[in-house]
């Protein structure tokens, strides 16, 4: 099962490698990982998308909590939440493809943020699955480069992750 785990940790040198190192040392998988400071700059918020059985996910949250720099851990996917990921995708845009790619970007509510004679860069923010569908909707031969931020997420309503 896919899980989105959100972590509040001390914004200190090496804190990220403690989390990443834990995942590799215990053979847990990381699909995406994203991290940045919060409104309180002494704190970082880290989001990891992982998968595993319930027992494995339980161990992951326990092991994360054991890290000294980790303040709070929550499995966002346990309850109502929103997830978003940003993708920048550079595509070959010439001839009839130019119009088609523009239309497709509109359908997915993306923006074309860079235009040259032969390329577009499309910016798209959505769930990871929706980004995947966009990639599939484009002729694979036209994709020049993709870059994704990895998933970040937040609980709905009064579900708040704070110190």
């Amino acid at each position, binding site marked *: 099962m896919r899980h989105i785990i959100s972590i509040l*940790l*001390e914004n200190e*040198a*090496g804190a990220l*490698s*403690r989390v990443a*190192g834990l995942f590799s*040392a215990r053979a847990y998988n990381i699909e995406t990982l994203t991290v940045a400071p919060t409104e309180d700059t002494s704190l970082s918020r880290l989001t990891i998308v992982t998968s595993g059985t319930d*027992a494995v996910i*339980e*161990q992951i949250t*326990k*092991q994360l*909590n*054991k890290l*000294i*720099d*980790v*303040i709070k851990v929550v499995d966002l996917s346990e309850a109502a939440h929103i997830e978003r990921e940003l993708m920048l995708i550079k595509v070959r845009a010439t001839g009839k493809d130019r119009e088609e790619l523009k239309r497709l970007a509109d359908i997915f509510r993306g923006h074309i943020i860079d235009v040259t004679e032969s390329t577009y860069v499309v910016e798209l923010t959505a769930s990871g699955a929706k980004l995947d569908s966009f990639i599939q909707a484009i002729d694979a031969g036209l994709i020049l480069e993709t870059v994704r931020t990895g998933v970040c997420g937040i609980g709905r309503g009064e579900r708040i992750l704070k*110190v």
Partner: protein
Amino acid sequence: MTMMTGAEIVIRCLQEEKVEYVFGYPGGAVLHIYDALFKQDQIKHILVRHEQAAVHAADGLARSSYKVGVALVTSGPGATNAVTGIATAYMDSVPLVVISGQVPNAYIGQDAFQECDTVGITRPCVKHNFLVNDVHQLAVTIKKAFYIANSGRPGPVVVDIPKDVTAAKCKFEYPETIQMRSYNPVIKGHLGQIKKAVHMLLEAKRPMIYTGGGVILSNGADQLTRLTRRLGFPITNTLMGLGAYPGTDRQFLGMPGMHGTVEANLAMQHCDVLLAIGARFDDRVIGNPENFSSLPRKIIHVDIDPSSISKRVKVDVPIVGNVPDVLDEMLRLLEAGNASPDSGVLAAWWQEIEEWRAKQCMKYRMKKSIIMPQYVMERLYEVTGGKAIVTSDVGQHQMWAAQYYKFDEPRRWLNSGGLGTMGVGLPYAMGAALQHPEMAIACVTGEGSIQMCIQELSTAKQFRLPIKIINLNNRYLGMVRQWQEMFYGSRYAESYMDSLPDFVKLAEAYGHVGMRIDKPEDVEPALRKAFIDHKDDLVFMDFITDQKANVFPMVAAGKGLADMILTEDL
């Protein structure tokens, strides 16, 4: 308030923490610290001959007492040599503070002389580590290091200090207490869970208590003994937990696991309620987890580390908390309810256990002309009256020591249970000897293990540590040989120890007493001579033992606990 250098601050912090001994080895990056050490006489420095032994010795001191062990090493190779010691302590949750020198801040990342990423290298084998870039952070970081090392589930903490930080000056202020928003270990167990557990224990028909190193680390042996006697249940202590309950008591079934007794393993397997305390259902203890879980039994698990609970085996009643606190609460509930288990039901269970015990699985055959290693352990127990601190290395001798020496008290048995580090025996004995000058210290080892830290015979001479080394010399890496005999068609690949030194001469060369014993009738007189006549000397006893002796019972790796190979099976 006077200004102090970083080096002086380091020493001052150690004094504030009442550190008596620092085990270490000097080098470029820690010269300022050594200079500050030289100018005081409160802390004694023990100069080892290899940094690995510095950490092991600090670890041995910690295991044999209630203290945090402290080691001091230089940057680069000093730190990398310390890694085995740190990983060993980490696996067994021993509180240590390891201070390592680092190249000056401005040199970090420049591939400077004796530079290595100590924080990066040690990260997976420490409870936590710090790189202190600023002298103003030094005192508070060291305070945090001691706090983290010795609270919750203990463990080693590395403090890496660049050389310029030890030269820089600032005012010294040592915080009295530490508050960390990200680290607050749970002490008291959940009362509802504890009540549920007590109820389950009272209802049990075939109860069993299984405890590990956590009971010893948390100083919970007294509570454990009272609870076990109050309930009248059978109990087993793991390799790490020996001594938490008196080994000579009738309720004690011996050690469980790969080389555990028949009665302990079968009781673990066939109980209906298992009370696990400060133990982690290690693969060497429960064997195959699928097989173990296939039998219907309820498990209550008390541990301070939530990640140890339901890690390998699903637990029915988890209790996160400090062992003595939780056991005190259990005892209080039993007293308050004036409740006791049904003695008739319990008697039937004990009868079954006594039938298993009657198999006498630890019996071995004596030989006329050659010394059996088990016999040496039995004699060691007799000669020391069961009162020695026994350290061991890793292998067959470790298992025989654990099986045949009965530990009645905690912190008397020091060995590397988790990481299984050969070479710990002698440095552990050094740490224990310094901490307990009044006690007999026996280091049980083999000719393979002892050579992994043999250089420490020199340290032992310098500091006059009267350790008694019991070398069970079978000219084989015995445990490797045993597995090769049983599982690899007796192809003894690289397990024969050739070109061994003359250990008697070697001991004498270091200024110690050496003895070679090769007849069974000489075993006890030699031990008496060593422990009584040479009480104040280090004595190296080289016992030439049976080459084919194996450790039994044995549960082969991956098998269920009931699947034991006994002596007579062969």
